């Protein structure tokens, strides 16, 4: 009998919604939430011996501790397979699933599987590290997700050969696997062109590597007269993170006033970013958001002025779509405020 340990969040365990996202990891021995559907789909070949329930906020804000604890829990049960989620389009849940699945795979050498919607930030982050089954974008797609995940899960547990992403239902992970289609390539090309001409959806058989190039604006004419603003994805926030910008998969950005501030100190600023060792940024946030240097340049007349507001978010696992949306919003303010150029810092 194949032993499976499952990981789900507070919502799917029926503990509660956002308000319960802070609960720490705990083990349930009874089958919970999606586990019921999985158990059925396994048709007696596998059983879920334990379900780990963890709040999404807790996981994302206490990454190291949560990982350690959960790995310990998994190790105790010594399963043949670890399944996380499916997370559908829930960003922090998806990142949690990807993170914990990758950790179990790397540190415990147990086959892992997770599932989420293709636009979940966890997908881009982890699809090349662990198998991620492509699901619909909400829990309405649970039945469909389990249908795809269960057979692949059993294959992984049994150590069987995993075929191409198109055949097995996982997200293309950068490893090309050959297989025979039902129709010849020229027919597939004609079908694809017909879909493209009709404006219908189609799926390319080979995604081009992502370039996402942005054409640079022309250079600033006179930098000594320019108003420069600072924008960062390095997560620098006032001490205490008053707006609770998440350490990963940020759902918001912050706008803070540095009028009169010439230097960021350990007492007044910190980093909210969960994706890098925060020690040096917490000691001196100027290292990520160079306010002190720009104030010097301002005094020396090398730049016109430093804009009084800086904008910040956490770039860790934040969806490209979200980042674009934030910027579209606050760049309007930057323009209205007469900012000529922006220095973008990232980590």
């Amino acid at each position, binding site marked *: 009998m194949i032993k499976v340990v499952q990981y789900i969040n507070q919502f799917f365990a029926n503990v509660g919604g956002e308000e319960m996202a802070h609960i720490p990891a705990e083990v349930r021995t009874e089958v919970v939430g999606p586990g019921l559907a999985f158990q059925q789909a396994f048709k007696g070949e596998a059983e879920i011996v334990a379900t780990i329930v963890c709040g999404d906020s807790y996981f994302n804000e206490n990454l190291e501790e949560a990982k350690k604890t959960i790995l310990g829990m998994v190790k105790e049960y010594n399963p043949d397979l670890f399944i996380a989620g499916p997370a559908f389009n829930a960003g922090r849940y998806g990142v949690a699933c990807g993170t914990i699945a990758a950790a179990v795979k790397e540190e415990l050498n147990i086959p892992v599987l997770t599932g989420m919607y293709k636009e979940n930030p966890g997908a881009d982050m982890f699809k090349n590290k662990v198998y991620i089954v492509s699901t619909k974008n909400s829990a309405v797609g649970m039945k469909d997700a389990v249908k795809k995940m269960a057979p692949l899960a059993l294959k992984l547990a049994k150590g069987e050969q995993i075929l191409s992403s198109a055949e097995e239902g996982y997200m293309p992970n950068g490893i090309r696997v*050959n*297989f025979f*289609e039902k129709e*010849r*390539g*020229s027919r*597939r090309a004609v079908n694809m062109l017909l879909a493209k001409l009709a404006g219908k959806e189609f799926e390319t*058989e080979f995604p081009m590597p992502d370039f996402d190039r942005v054409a640079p604006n022309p250079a600033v004419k006179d930098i000594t007269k320019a108003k420069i603003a600072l924008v960062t994805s390095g997560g620098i926030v006032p001490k205490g993170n008053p707006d609770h910008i998440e350490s990963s998969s940020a759902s918001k950005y912050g706008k803070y006033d540095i009028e009169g501030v010439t230097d960021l100190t350990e007492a007044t600023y910190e980093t909210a970013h969960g994706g890098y060792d925060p020690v040096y940024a917490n000691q001196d946030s100027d290292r990520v958001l160079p306010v002190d240097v720009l104030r010097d340049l301002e005094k020396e007349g090398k730049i016109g002025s430093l804009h009084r507001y800086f904008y910040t978010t956490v770039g860790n696992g934040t969806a490209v779509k979200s980042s674009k949306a934030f910027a579209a919003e606050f760049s309007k303010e930057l323009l209205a405020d007469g900012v000529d150029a922006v220095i973008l810092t990232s980590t």
Partner: protein
Amino acid sequence: MKLELGYIYIKDIQFAEESKVENGTLYVNKEKVKELVLEDEHFKSVEVDLAKPGESTRIMPVKDVIEPRVKVEGPGGIFPGMVSKVETVGSGKTHVLKGAAVVTTGKIVAFQEGIIDMTGPGSEYTPFSKLNNLVLICEPVDGLKQHDHERALRFAGYKVAVYLGELARTLVPDQVEVFETPTVKEGLKLYPELPRVAYVLMLQSQGLMHDTYVYGVDAKQTLTTMLYPTEIMDGAIVSGNCVSACDKNTTYHHINNPVVHDLFSEHGKTINFVGVIITNENVYLADKERSSNWSAKLAEFLGLDGVIISQEGFGNPDTDLIMNCKKIEAKGIKTVIITDEYAGRDGSSQSLADADASANAVVTGGNANQVINLPALEKVIGYTSVADIIAGGFSGSLHEDGSITAELQVITGATNEMGFNKLSAR
């Protein structure tokens, strides 16, 4: 231009006193074939053999595969500019010995190209394992230069294919398919509402053993131009390309171009298949720019809504492919491109030598680096010992028991970039 293709289905091939086709069997007078080949003084001897589907036979190294056809009605003859005169073909009636092929083998250069297995795992990767093949093993005279050897072998293949095709002249076809392309003016009147689609066919054109001929003209010397799709069905384009067995287009691939056939099946229904734009793949970068500029220019000139682009070969043709794609997309014309991949043995490397975000609709013929084990077969036609130096092979790839471990690269037609096969990758 309208062409009727009459298929005579060949289910078996045998040597006999008299060459003829009877009840689906192609009978071949071996001596007559040898005579034909030896008309060319560049050959000192020739062997002729048979390879049938399901037999435990391996053919290697394969140079070209050619299908026997004959022009029954209408201007010109098969392989215009090569074996026949240059008259424009593609109209009237042509008969095809469907299920038969001529396969040429030979050591033009010491590194060898192309395996066809008629049975076993290898047979799944080549369309030629399903054909009744007449194999020519031609021995060149001593000291023959490679250019002359390549040319002689190429023509030997066409001559024999034409000789066999002739046997179908007076037969009644088992099945007839009609293909018709209207002129631009007629097409606009007939199909005013249908999207205008053309096929951009990229031809390998780099030098010795990397050439393609259009009505006998070396594709290196050509400017991007147009053909009626049916001209291709009469052999207007033939292959002089013998390097990279998996993704080179044999003459058989050209004359049976699957994109042409599949676009025709939609013609008049969902699209207006306007025609074929042929363009080359020269090594000189300015030539690449010029050729792709012209593809885009012609596509726009024809008022196209969409194109399918197929390429041939590895490496620098990826640049031509992306140039063609980018420039045509920039004209507001939608593209689908067909390629193959070299993603490394583990499938994790960058598949193409070039890329662009506008190439968002890609069909792939598979990863050519995938390693395959070909079991020893009872009969080998050709030269075995070359497996070690076959492209995609490696030292130790020919095992003592006669089996071969090599990349898919070695199998003729395995990752064809016209979309001839069902192999793909994700």
